[in-house]
């Protein structure tokens, strides 16, 4: 059956026609042959009966007269009448053969092979001699109601049926001829039909490949505007030779329905245009196909335009989603991810496509996934919007996220999903902390400044009196004690000065200065005492250093702080490496102070610039050094940062660092060559300096 389905349509028509003709030939030919055969049998029997009865009647007198010659002539004449008369013979009353048609000898089996029926009725019996079949007819020879013998005639069935076989041959020939003619005609018919179907098929194949401009139906000689003598050029059918008017919607003909095909076709049935141009079913199919192709083409064009718009909108949407740093994701009602943006995918170390179809359990650690699932489910159940701030450990630090979960509704108002956005607010959190710290520092600075300011006066008096008393007392224990008071009072004044500096109580005195000089002054100042602590200072200064606008004192304080911290980081001795570089392109100078000490713990690296943060024991440091330095550098529009351990490409002098302890740390101070305050602030600064003087 599958092979049959794969046959060509024309072959199927041929096979069908052949099958029908064969079927009819069989159904009609077989009964005809049968009826003919039966008729022949009946005819043979009738003929045999007539011949036998005739022989019986004609042989009555010769039998009575015992006229064997006449009997012999009778049977011979009968035998010669027709080729299918196999034999004829006459028996006497006792069954003796009186005459027979055989030239030599008589087959004795024939005598008993058949006999008249009861009452002298005709008996017909089919005999089989092996070579052929013979109908034997037995009729009594009766005179005056008395039987004087039997007349027997044998008709060869094999020869008698020759006409039937000829008839069968004729029927077979006619059937074969009819079959041939029907196959030829059906082939012509099939070609006519399939030629047009093939045009349709080709058209369909072209449509599949996207070619919708083909026209299967040919142009007609007369179009609707010709037939109707119409000049309404605004009618959509006017001038359209590709489609019949009944395929065109919105035609302006008065008789037209005006609706679309095929609804309008009802109004076209009686239209002269339809009656003139409508074809057969295949023509209708072809033209419907053409109309469909045109409609399809229009629809496809519209779809493509819509697709373009959709794609553009999708791209915009995708771009918006992907460029936003927020983690955006969409989950369905089963909490399976349906979409996400690139930031979300990156946050779970996946591609966007990999996230779709996953659940929280697939993307997050079990505990976190359970929390997220619980939160999402709550949105699905309540239909309310939730927002939370969550903290996540990430790498070396922690990250804060502001998460918003919004239910997604379908057209029926049913909740079909959850839209979840998470924004990284770590920086804002830091700013909040720094703001709080700054406010704290500001309060503390004001407090410390006020206290220092108040302490400064009595401290000056204590120092002054101590110095005066030293002059008044002879050398001795008292003078030494006064000296101790004086030194400790100076220490206190230094602390007070730091506090005042921290609280910005002191004024900047910026001027043109040389950075290298500032650095070298400090280095020279501390080099000797450092060496006592087995700390060497190595410098690598950029000779091209231009004049910098800044406060030399405060900068020296910075260098001093950095150098002192470096020395303190190396209690067993080591090296301090000072390097300056001019970056003309970036319009900045950079100072690096590196040590070979134990370095700074990563955990506290971010807090070393906080005021009062110190790792030193009580009494060894105030925790204000780096905070003050930070303030001074910021005041100069620069930036200060710390790196620990020192970057591998930092470039510590080879050999110098070898054997030194620790990975050390590097403080990097970047100062702008022109921080933009000179013109604006020079006057007040100068005024301030002047005022100081």
């Amino acid at each position, binding site marked *: 059956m599958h092979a049959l389905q794969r046959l060509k349509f024309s072959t199927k028509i041929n096979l069908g026609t052949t099958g029908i003709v064969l079927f009819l030939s069989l159904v009609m030919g077989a009964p005809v042959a049968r009826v003919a055969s039966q008729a022949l049998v009946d005819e043979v029997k009738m003929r045999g009966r007539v011949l036998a009865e005739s022989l019986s009647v004609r042989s009555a007198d010769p039998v009575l*007269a015992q006229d064997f010659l006449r009997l012999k002539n009778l049977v011979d004449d009968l035998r010669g009448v027709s080729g299918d008369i196999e034999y004829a013979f006459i028996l006497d009353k006792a069954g003796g053969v009186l005459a027979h048609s055989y030239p*030599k000898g008589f087959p004795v*089996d024939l005598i008993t092979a058949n006999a008249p029926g009861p009452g002298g009725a005709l008996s017909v019996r089919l*005999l089989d001699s092996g070579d052929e079949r013979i109908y034997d007819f037995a009729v009594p020879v009766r*005179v005056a109601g008395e039987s004087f013998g039997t007349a027997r005639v044998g008709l060869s069935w094999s020869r008698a049926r020759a006409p039937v076989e000829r008839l069968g041959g004729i029927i077979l020939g006619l059937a074969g001829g009819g079959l041939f003619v029907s196959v030829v005609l059906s082939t012509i018919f099939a070609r006519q039909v399939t030629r047009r179907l093939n045009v349709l098929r080709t058209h369909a194949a072209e449509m599949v490949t996207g070619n919708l401009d083909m026209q299967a139906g040919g142009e007609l000689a007369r179009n609707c505007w010709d037939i109707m003598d119409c000049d309404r050029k605004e009618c959509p059918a006017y001038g359209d030779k590709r489609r019949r008017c009944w395929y065109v919607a919105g035609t302006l003909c008065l008789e037209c329905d005006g609706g679309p095909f095929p609804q309008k076709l009802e109004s076209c049935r009686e239209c002269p245009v339809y009656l003139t141009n409508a074809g057969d079913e295949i023509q209708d199919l072809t033209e419907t196909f053409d109309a469909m192709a045109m409609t399809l083409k229009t629809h496809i064009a519209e779809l493509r335009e819509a697709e373009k718009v959709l794609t553009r909108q999708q791209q915009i949407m995708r771009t918006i989603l992907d460029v936003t740093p927020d983690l955006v994701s969409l989950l369905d009602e089963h909490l399976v991810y349906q979409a996400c943006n690139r930031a979300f995918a990156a946050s779970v170390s996946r591609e966007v496509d990999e996230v779709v179809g996953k659940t929280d359990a697939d993307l997050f650690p079990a505990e976190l996934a359970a929390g997220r699932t619980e939160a999402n489910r709550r949105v699905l159940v309540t239909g309310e919007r939730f927002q939370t701030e969550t903290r996540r450990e990430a790498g070396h630090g922690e990250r804060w996220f502001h998460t918003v979960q919004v239910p997604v509704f379908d057209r029926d108002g049913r909740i079909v999903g959850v839209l979840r956005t998470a924004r990284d607010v770590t920086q804002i959190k830091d700013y909040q902390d720094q703001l709080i710290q700054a406010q704290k520092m500001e309060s503390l600075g004001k407090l410390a400044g006020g206290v220092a300011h108040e302490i400064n006066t009595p401290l000056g008096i204590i120092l002054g009196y101590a110095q005066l008393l030293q002059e008044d007392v002879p050398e001795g224990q008292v003078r030494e004690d006064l000296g101790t008071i004086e030194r400790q009072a100076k220490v206190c004044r230094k602390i007070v000065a730091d506090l005042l500096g921290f609280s910005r109580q002191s004024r900047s005195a910026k001027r043109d200065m040389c950075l290298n000089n500032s650095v070298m002054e400090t280095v020279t100042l501390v080099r000797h005492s450092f060496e006592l602590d087995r700390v060497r200072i190595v410098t690598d200064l950029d000779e091209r250093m231009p004049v910098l606008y800044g406060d030399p004192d405060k900068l020296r304080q910075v260098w001093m702080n950095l150098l002192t911290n470096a020395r303190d980081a190396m209690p067993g001795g080591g090296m301090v490496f000072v390097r300056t570089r001019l970056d003309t392109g970036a319009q900045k100078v950079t100072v690096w102070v590196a040590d070979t000490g134990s370095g700074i713990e990563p955990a506290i690296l971010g807090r070393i610039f906080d005021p009062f943060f110190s790792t030193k024991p009580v009494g060894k440091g105030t925790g204000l050094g780096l905070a003050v330095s930070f303030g001074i550098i910021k005041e100069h529009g620069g930036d200060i940062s710390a790196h620990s351990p020192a970057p591998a490409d930092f470039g510590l002098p080879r050999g110098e660092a070898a054997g030194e302890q620790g990975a050390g740390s590097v403080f990097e101070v970047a100062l702008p060559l022109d921080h933009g305050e000179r013109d604006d602030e020079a006057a007040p600064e100068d005024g301030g300096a002047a005022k100081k003087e």
Partner: protein
Amino acid sequence: MRKEYWAVGLAALALLILAVGWDREEPATRVDLSRRVDITLKTQTEAITYAYLPQYSHSISFERHRLLVEYLSRVTGYPFRQVFPDTFDEHVKMVERGEIDISFSNPFIYIRLARAGARAFARIVEESGRPDFYSQIICRKDNRAIHTLEDCRGKRWIAVDPSSAGGFVFALDYFQSHGIKRGDFTEIAFAPGPGGKQEKVVLAVYAGKYDIGSVRNGTLELVKNKVDLDAIRVLAESRPYPGWVYAVRRGFDPNKLEAIREAMLRLDAGGPEAAAILEAAHFKGIIPATDADYDPIRSLAGRISQE
């Protein structure tokens, strides 16, 4: 279409063809035609042969005389067998050769038989009730050319047989007695073929093939079912002559003859069996006869022969 439908359709078609078109074999009896023998007839048993002059077909001859022959066989105790000569001449010759013991013939034949030594011993009473018979000359009633015997001159005449008494000889004598001779006729034909010659004459005239015909009396009654007798006109009738005669061949056993004659004459006495026998034989009776009864015939024959 599903496969099941195809199968059902094909099966139905096959059944249809089988039911309608199949040529069913007829049972045949097996015979061996190669086993052949030469046929020889059994010799017939000795019997008294009885022959009826073949004026009719053998079947009619048999049918008419069957009961009489059976009666004679039963009554006399001698076996009888009818024999059927095809012609009058053969009949005469068979009597001459002794192949016919008892001959039943017309008187004209009898005088020939008598010349061969046969002797009459009985004669029949015709259905007309008379022991004699005569000839009838017939023509078509619508034959406008024939109104009187004289009109027969120059006409075509068909008769039964040159030896037929009632069918030819009586009529010929009648014509001659009226001055009409054989040569006056355009043609004198005789009924062709064996048997049934009386009927053939009537049919030939009826068909118009001949203008006049001569038959013995009683023949017209015989053919009333074959011929419209209204179309036939009896033109003339001859004088009557002694009827048909039973003769015995020369040399037949006189004892047997006597037994036969007695049995035959007994039939004339009546009785149901006799009536059936006589009716079948188309007689009214059988009466004794002598050779002298047929002298008128002899004289007739003489007249004819002189002509």
